[in-house]
């Protein structure tokens, strides 16, 4: 990893770095609460994913956590600092990649990065790159090399691809070595290759100790998270490691079929095995092993498939139940 991730965490690894207590936000013109009494905490160095459908309250939550929006009630602390009363201290500890690109299109990539670096007081103001301190020039060149955008960093933003712009935003957000990096749907608009590169890099950032707080629509991106919080209509509907959410909400099952379907159906009834025809015979494992179940069936089988639930199954199950 490059120099940007070698920072000193203000909070001991494993201690809570984000603490959200009974957070409520109702917009001035809103008739309902956009965020409706949520509480959770995120440990230092964790990869945390906030999931939810459109309008669930993800961006509202991230806006409050990054001090750009004031909560209606509740308390939020980042690294022990209150987001309302100690906003400036919070801002020094967080880096943000917004849902919509927030680069200045009139400037070059490097000018955008320099603007950020000076705003955070990392380097003194100089009107040109060549006049900036050597340490800055070196840091920018290293970061650009790390993300393979050495050729693009001095070009105007408006001529760069969406993927390159996202990389620039990441460089910018990590310049001040934040303890927490917030990413609000960071891969939106990126192609598969761009997404893969971004995730490789972000995994490295997390490995170096930065807490990563992500909102996303892509559920496979949240599969790798240490903790997942699923919200819908401003409320938390599930929280925990992806494995636990999956285990609690979606059961593992096997799908089987036979050429002689009547015989298989009769045998399952005789053995007291509950099943559903979908049209394959779907049998929930409920803690049994697939091997044990299949060994007990005498009817010759033509199809055997074991379904491992994904986070997407769990997510759809939760959201589906609520919407019903």
């Amino acid at each position, binding site marked *: 990893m490059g120099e940007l991730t070698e920072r000193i965490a203000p909070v001991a690894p494993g201690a809570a770095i984000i603490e959200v207590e009974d957070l409520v936000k109702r917009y001035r013109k809103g008739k309902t609460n956009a965020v409706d009494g949520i509480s959770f905490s995120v440990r230092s160095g964790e990869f945390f994913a906030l999931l939810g459908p459109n309008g669930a309250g993800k961006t509202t939550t991230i806006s409050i956590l990054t*001090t750009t929006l004031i909560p209606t009630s509740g308390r939020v602390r980042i690294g022990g600092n209150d987001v309302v009363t100690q906003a*400036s*201290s919070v801002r020094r500890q967080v880096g943000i990649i917004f849902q919509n690109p927030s680069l200045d299109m*009139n400037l070059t990539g490097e000018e955008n990065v320099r*603007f950020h670096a000076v*705003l955070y*007081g990392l380097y003194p*103001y100089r009107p040109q790159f060549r006049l900036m301190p050597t340490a800055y020039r070196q840091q920018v060149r290293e970061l650009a090399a790390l993300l393979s955008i050495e050729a693009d960093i001095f070009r105007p933003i408006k001529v760069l691809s969406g993927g390159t712009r996202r990389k620039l935003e990441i460089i910018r957000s990590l310049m001040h070595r934040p303890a927490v990096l917030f990413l609000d749907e960071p891969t939106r608009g990126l192609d598969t290759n761009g997404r893969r590169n971004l995730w490789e890099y972000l995994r490295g950032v997390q490995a170096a100790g930065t807490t990563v707080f992500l909102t996303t629509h892509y559920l496979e991106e949240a599969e790798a998270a240490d903790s997942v919080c699923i919200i819908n209509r401003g409320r938390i509907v599930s929280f925990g490691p992806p494995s636990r959410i999956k285990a609690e909400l979606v059961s593992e099952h096997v799908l089987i079929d036979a050429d002689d379907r009547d015989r298989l159906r009769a045998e399952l009834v005789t053995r007291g095995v509950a099943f559903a025809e979908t049209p394959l015979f779907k049998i929930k494992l409920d803690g049994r092993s697939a091997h044990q179940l299949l060994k007990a069936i005498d009817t010759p089988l033509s199809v055997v498939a074991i379904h491992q639930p994904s986070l997407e199954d769990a997510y759809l199950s939760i959201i589906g139940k609520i919407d019903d």
Partner: protein
Amino acid sequence: MTELGPVLAIAQRDLMKLLRDRPRMVTTLVFPLLLIGVLGGSLQANLGRHLGFDFLAFTFTGVFGQTLFQTTAQGVISMITDRENDFSQEMFVSPISRYSIIVGKILGESLVALPQAVAIIAFALIVGIRASAAQFGGLVVVGLLICLLGGAFGILVLSNLSSQEMAGQIFTFVMLPQFFLAGIFNPIKVLPPYLDILSRIAPMRYAVDLGRAAFYAGRPESARVVLDSPVVDLAVIGGMFTVFLIVGTALFVRSERNR
């Protein structure tokens, strides 16, 4: 001042935007010259001899003050575009003071207005408006104060806006009447009471009048053109700047965070 660097960086960003936008540069430079040349020229030809002072010079000083005031105010209001493009979030999540952001913006838009000031003075010389170097120099110094007032006025207007579309509508409403209440093209030495009251609450009046006080200093026509003492103009400008900046910034930050 520890936040001087961020203030300068914000200011430079605005200047870079102007320098990289050639069509904008041309229009910002040409429009004031049209006002002076066409409006000032025609009024001088038709009315000048009855007034007892040169109408072209009168229009020149008026447009000078109006242009700097309006450009800076308009530039600060352009932060609404930043807000809609999400660039303002980048500034507002940074740890610097909200006042530094606004001061940087006002400074940047003042730098944007500066080339206009130079172009207007150059045009004045071309069309035969004569003054001493000290008088032109005084005008430039006053120009900086006008920019500061325009910027503070801009932040007060901005704090009450919610969208770019609304900005366009409100801007015409708060700016156009001031053209006439400040006497840019029309003498306002004598006004009916209701217009006099309105004129005295128009910030642009003091900006334009201070410019004219600098330009006409020591000239016989000063008494016919200049409305108030420069001390009064300076005091009002200073007071308005302070109030607009503090109230405007507080309201703007509140509207940003307390949606």
